[in-house]
């Protein structure tokens, strides 16, 4: 019996936030000290979906923005990781990559804001994509420097000696071999971007309305029910991506 208690407890603690948010979003009346709502209602969801200009454009913008950032950062990190393989300053660059995470993303955004204002991209989607790229790109490079180890370089060399051009080697060997790593990087950066608040708030200047910012606004308005409904939407795309990633890894033929 005892061997089940800890795994069940840990599993419950991990699942709790994911259970609590849908329950709160569908609660009609929920007063202390009840452990579960006394009644259920779809009113909060109706309000969320009908609120302001509608939630669908916000979700669409968030998916496009995070997808673009994740794709851009993953692809450039993959290429730069290869370019840095065998370079003498690789370790120093890898160490420098951590500098971007030495201070808060909001402070980082404020430091960069001047340049974004000068360039005229502050308050635009392009500006938010660029600032997120700047913050997440070092992570991608650090990640892919480790990926491009001796084994990957040897695979590339093997392709060459078998008669392959560089382009064919990448198309038929290196990219297919790297798919699990690329998928993991994409997923992680998508999640970073999806949940980003500070960078989007500062550089977007309130004109780029993502789902994270919208949920935050509901919280600021002290409306926990509608914020919970928004949070459920916020959790959905990363949860789907994680599930797909986990399934592909587990059921890889």
């Amino acid at each position, binding site marked *: 019996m005892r061997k089940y208690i800890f795994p069940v407890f840990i599993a419950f603690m991990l699942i709790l936030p994911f259970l609590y948010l849908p329950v709160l979003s569908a609660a009609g009346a929920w007063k202390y000290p009840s452990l579960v709502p006394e009644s259920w209602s779809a009113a909060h969801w109706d309000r969320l979906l009908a609120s302001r200009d509608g939630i669908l454009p916000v979700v669409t913008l968030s998916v496009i923005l995070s997808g673009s950032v994740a794709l851009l950062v993953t692809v450039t990190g993959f290429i730069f990781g290869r370019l840095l393989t065998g370079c003498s300053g690789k370790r120093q660059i890898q160490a420098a990559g951590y500098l971007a995470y030495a201070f808060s993303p909001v402070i980082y955004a404020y430091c960069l804001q001047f340049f974004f204002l000068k360039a005229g991209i502050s308050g635009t989607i392009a500006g938010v994509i660029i600032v997120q790229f700047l913050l997440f790109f070092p992570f991608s490079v650090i990640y892919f420097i480790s990926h491009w180890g001796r*084994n990957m370089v*040897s*695979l590339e*060399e*093997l*392709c*060459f*000696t*078998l*008669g*392959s*051009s560089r382009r*064919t*080697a990448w198309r*038929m*060997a290196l990219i*297919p*071999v790297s*798919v699990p790593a690329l998928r993991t990087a994409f997923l992680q950066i998508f999640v970073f971007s999806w949940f980003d608040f500070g960078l989007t708030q500062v550089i977007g200047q309130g004109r780029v309305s993502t789902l994270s910012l919208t949920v935050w606004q509901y919280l600021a308005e002290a409306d926990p029910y509608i914020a919970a409904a928004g949070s459920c939407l916020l959790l959905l795309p990363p949860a789907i991506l994680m599930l797909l990633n986990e399934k592909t890894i587990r059921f890889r*033929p």
Partner: protein
Amino acid sequence: MNIKVNNISVNRSGQQVLNGLSFELEDGHILSVMGKSGCGKTTLLRVIAGLGSSDTGNIVIGGRDVTLVPPQERGAVYLYQEALLFPHLNVLDNLSFGLRIRGEHKKSADEKARDMLEQLDLASHAAKKSEQLSGGQRQRVAFGRALLVSPAVLLLDEPFSNLDSETRAAMQQLYRKMAQERGITTIFVTHDLKEAVIMGSRLSYMEAGKLHLYDNLNSFAADTRTGMQREIGFWQSFDKK
């Protein structure tokens, strides 16, 4: 094809790895290269394959100077200690990989790969992924993949070092038989004295960035650097007991 290496020197970070190294290997021969760790054996293979550059000298394969030719066009396939099979492909696709990247049609490439599978005694493993094979089977696939592209020169860098002794012995026989049947000129780097003698139709020892080729097994055995006398002495000491 015969291979001629003339006055090759490689200096890496102030260290003379290859020092005016020269040798010639006739068509269809297998040259065993022995030598201590760090003596430059791998560097020599990489320079011949075009994966590393030399400071001086030139390399001629089949009468063509390939010193400045990229690795893709040299016809010299380099095999590593690890089999380096592609994890996203099955055994058949791994075998036909070299043909496919050269633009051969899938059907024709698969036919040739199936023939090779038979010769390697791996026909029943065609659909398996590399992680489902043993170390010896993986090396056989890697060897078959190299043979299928009909290389001018095969460069083997301790390909059996990670195998157990029984598999190793079987692989030595298979490699030698198949390379000789196809008349492929081969350079075989090894630390193992017995393996060098079994595999090589020519024997050599590398030291201080230079390669010494022996005329026959007796002259190889007579050179104390090769360790053969010590090995013979070791086994003779059992006779005395």
